[in-house]
């Protein structure tokens, strides 16, 4: 469960103040709002990439407000995938596990498992150059899910994709959510994505978050 209470965040001169919401464990939450409303700032605050001025963020009753991103156990997929150009697809999937000093056999087994779940097996030895938009986003998803995070934060991961690839990645996301049970916080502008994926829609308007529960 993510519990955000009276959160104040600053991004330059932009101030997001007094934001509160709760996302139940295993939910697929879609965060919507106008451009410039502070969705990405809020997501960065949850991930630990932006300093919290006041308020709190709790993850399963654990206060993570001032923890560094590495200690939060949150997977993050940005809009532009932000792949590491010097690594192969397999090395992307192993990255977080190597940081955590998993033993080699466990890393190999986990890489195979994640690659199979995201249909990345034929791409494992490839570098990221020349991957299509959909393939890049699947690699970014695999990289974020490899260490089995409690929460997955997605910042408009489908916005740069064509309609066909968008549908494909939507299916991948729905399947991943169903099979892993990970709690997802997904930013989008696209109503169709929200209708298809969301079990709860959060609308960020004028600094406050309105919650709308759905049955996807």
């Amino acid at each position: 469960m993510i519990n955000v209470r009276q959160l104040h965040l600053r991004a330059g001169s932009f101030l997001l103040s007094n934001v509160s919401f709760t996302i139940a464990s295993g939910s697929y939450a879609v965060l919507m709002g106008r451009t410039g409303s502070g969705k990405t700032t809020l997501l960065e605050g949850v991930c630990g990439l932006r300093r919290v001025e006041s308020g709190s963020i709790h993850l399963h009753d654990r206060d993570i407000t001032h923890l560094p991103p590495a200690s939060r156990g949150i997977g993050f997929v940005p809009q532009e995938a932000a792949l590491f150009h010097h690594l192969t697809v397999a090395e992307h999937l192993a990255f977080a596990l190597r940081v955590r000093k998993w033993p080699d056999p466990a890393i190999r087994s986990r890489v195979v498992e994640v690659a199979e779940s995201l249909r990345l097996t034929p791409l494992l030895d490839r570098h990221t150059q020349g991957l299509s938009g959909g393939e890049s986003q699947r690699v970014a998803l695999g990289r974020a899910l490899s260490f089995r995070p409690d929460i997955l934060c997605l910042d408009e991961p489908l916005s740069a994709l064509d309609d066909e690839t968008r549908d494909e990645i939507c299916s991948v996301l729905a399947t991943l959510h169903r099979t892993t049970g990970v709690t997802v916080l997904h930013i989008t502008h696209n109503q169709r994505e929200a209708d298809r994926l969301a079990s709860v829609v959060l609308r960020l308007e004028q600094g406050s978050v309105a919650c709308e529960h759905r049955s996807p």
Partner: protein
Amino acid sequence: MALPGRSRRAMTVAPSSTPGPSIPRDPTRADRAFLLALIVLGGSYLLVLGAMLVADASYTSPSHLWKALRSPEIRYAIHLSFLTCTLTAILSVWVAVPIGYLMARWRFPGRALVDALLDIPIVLPPLVIGLSLLILFQTPPGRAIERFIPVTYAIPSVILAQFMVACAFAVRTMRATFDLISPRQEHVALTLGCSRPQAFWWVVIPEAKRGILTAGTLAWARALGEFGPILVFSGATRMKTEVLPTTVFLELSVGNLEAAVAVSLLMVVAAVAVLLIIRTFGAQESIGRPL
């Protein structure tokens, strides 16, 4: 703004299978004139550059080059130049990477002033850099250093003079490199479990590899051609602080034009060889990689 009819049509690209009136793909007269103007303007510079090198080459002969290479003074200058340029390049990269990273990633009070300060060695006349270094080592802290390591008019002064100028170019290169690397990659690395130093060493540095190589090459090539600050700060003592530009100056001053030209050509060959090697290596590294 709409372009005049003919040019606009020429710039429109349509698949050849598209039905309807055919759109001319050949360059129009205006396109050709534009291209010609670019070639003439750019080409004139290249022409003078090429002519200078050809003139140098025609002024000397293999026997002059051989004679120059056999001279102990010139051989000393070649060794010292390669040693000092390599040390300068390593030191420049060592300093330029942290400065470039800090300037690209952090906003702090006085940043504009620091930015301007970093450009001083680029805009100042090289002689002034040499003079400033000379004065610096006459101050109490400078003299204290000299008591342990002789710097002025010794080999360390050559490295320091080259470094003060070459490093500014390396800093500019590294700053541009880090500006081009999205901070998002570091953000992702942090969420994957990295500390800031781990994200820097495991993600940012590998991503900046080509920029680091370019900064090092640029610093090396800039150091090879450095003369003004070395003349003032290191002097022009044969077999002591003599680097290749000093040799050209000394040979010219005694009227030995053939030896001066031969050494100049050696410098041209060395600089072109290093630039070609590094660029070829860089091109192989970047095959298929967007820049």
